[in-house]
């Protein structure tokens, strides 16, 4: 489903190597944990997948499409197929939980009827129906991450990327997020988690790909 074909990403005119000739395959419904120290290239790999950046060399395939060659006009569609969550959640502080999730549908001009059906359904799935009217600053960090997950799922993405999803969470909240991600994978969504959280690495049931200094050093 996803193929990295000899991908290299250089920064600062080649003086910094984020990814060095990385090749890997990720299959449909896989749950992959990208591990490695800070600066190993985990986040870069995820950013390349949603075409936030382009690699310096190599090709990245999502199903049949080469993401590197994807035209700008097709990027929004790609990002609806590949949802993403972040360590800092990226929630809009001026919108409540319901509105934050609805926002992802509004920007794709979904109908009010659709929004009214999808948002409550997803809030129920992530266990936040009762907090629909709360604003982000009224939520725990775990709840904020669950809102971000609900938002990432509104377009029913085939892949969900999670960049350090438990980085700001305590153990209890981390457990809930890991459980939720595992559940989402069970529903059929391919998941790629970039983390250096030992708890996540040990708990999650999936493939592990270890990156170090921009290279794949271990695959299981």
């Amino acid at each position: 489903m996803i193929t990295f074909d000899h991908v290299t990403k250089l920064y600062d005119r080649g003086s910094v190597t984020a990814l060095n000739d990385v090749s890997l395959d990720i299959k449909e419904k896989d749950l992959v944990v990208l591990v490695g120290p800070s600066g190993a290239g985990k986040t870069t790999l995820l950013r390349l997948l949603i075409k936030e950046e382009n690699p310096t060399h190599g090709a990245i395939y999502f199903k049949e499409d080469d993401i590197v060659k994807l035209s700008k006009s097709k990027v929004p569609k790609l990002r609806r197929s590949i949802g993403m969550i972040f360590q800092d959640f990226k929630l809009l502080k001026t919108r409540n939980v319901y509105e934050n999730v609805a926002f992802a549908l509004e920007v794709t001009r979904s109908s009010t009827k659709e929004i009214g059906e999808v948002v409550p359904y997803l809030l129920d799935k992530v266990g936040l129906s009762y907090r629909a009217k709360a604003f982000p600053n009224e939520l725990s960090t775990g709840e904020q991450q669950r809102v971000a997950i609900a938002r990432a799922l509104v377009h029913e993405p085939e892949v969900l990327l999670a960049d350090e999803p438990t980085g700001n969470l305590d153990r209890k909240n981390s457990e809930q997020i890991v459980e939720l991600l595992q559940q989402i994978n069970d529903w059929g969504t391919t998941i790629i988690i970039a983390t250096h959280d030992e708890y996540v690495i040990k708990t999650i049931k999936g493939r592990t790909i270890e990156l170090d200094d921009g290279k794949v050093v271990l695959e299981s």
Partner: protein
Amino acid sequence: MNIIRNAIQHITRSPLQSISVVSILALTFLIGQLFVTVTVGSGRILSYYENRPQVMIFFKDEVLEDQILQIKAELEKDPTVEQVSYISKEQAVEIYKERSLRLFPDKPELLEFVTADMLPASLGVSATSVDTLYKISDDFQNNQFVESAIFQEDLVKELTRFIDALRIAGAIVIAILLFTAIMLMMVVVSHNIRSFGSEIEVMRLVGAGSWYIRWPFVIDSIIFALISSTIATLGQYLLLPAVKSFSLNFIAAVDIIPNQNEYILYLYGATLVFGVVFTSLISLIATWRKVRI
């Protein structure tokens, strides 16, 4: 509807910036409209002078009316002379009184001591050929009955020179104001884009199209253009009577804008179209530079 709502949010989030943009745009449009009025009006004034008798021959007091009418008849024989009009001393007094009353309605004393003896009788001559006018002017300068002969081409030339200078100055002022408006709008749109950075980032990540993100900023600019054009046109509507009165009293006895309401409507329409295109282009350039997909 969301796009409109977003646009209104942009405007209300930075009210002082929005007021600055509207002010500079309204001023630019108002000066632009005045420039158009001056151009239209000066065209009418020039045409007025060009169609008036172009040589004025003023006669000495002792010259009799019959002698002047004889000269008139002689002039009318020339096929290149279009028209010769006679203004008697009495008619000259009437014209003086009428103009004085119009210019200085509160100074009736100006009329008290003016009698027909004090003003000269005159002939106004218009011709199809400038050469004829030069010849008439030169011939009558040295005529024994004539006090003076004034060739109005000089006046038209002077007026043309003045209007040209006014147009150049107006164009320079408008160019400066347009440049200022462009810079200010670029700064404000860029600032708005920055202040909506988190929303834009989320929009991009959840798959919003490029136009969905850019449109609200373009709509902001269209709203700015609508408000500014309306303010400028209202200003023009209030200033136009003063401009017309100034022209009527001090430059030429001609109404420079005869159909004022119709003219204002045309001006409003043109300003709206120009404003919308102008501001939309600026915001499109700003969003193109600042919003990355």
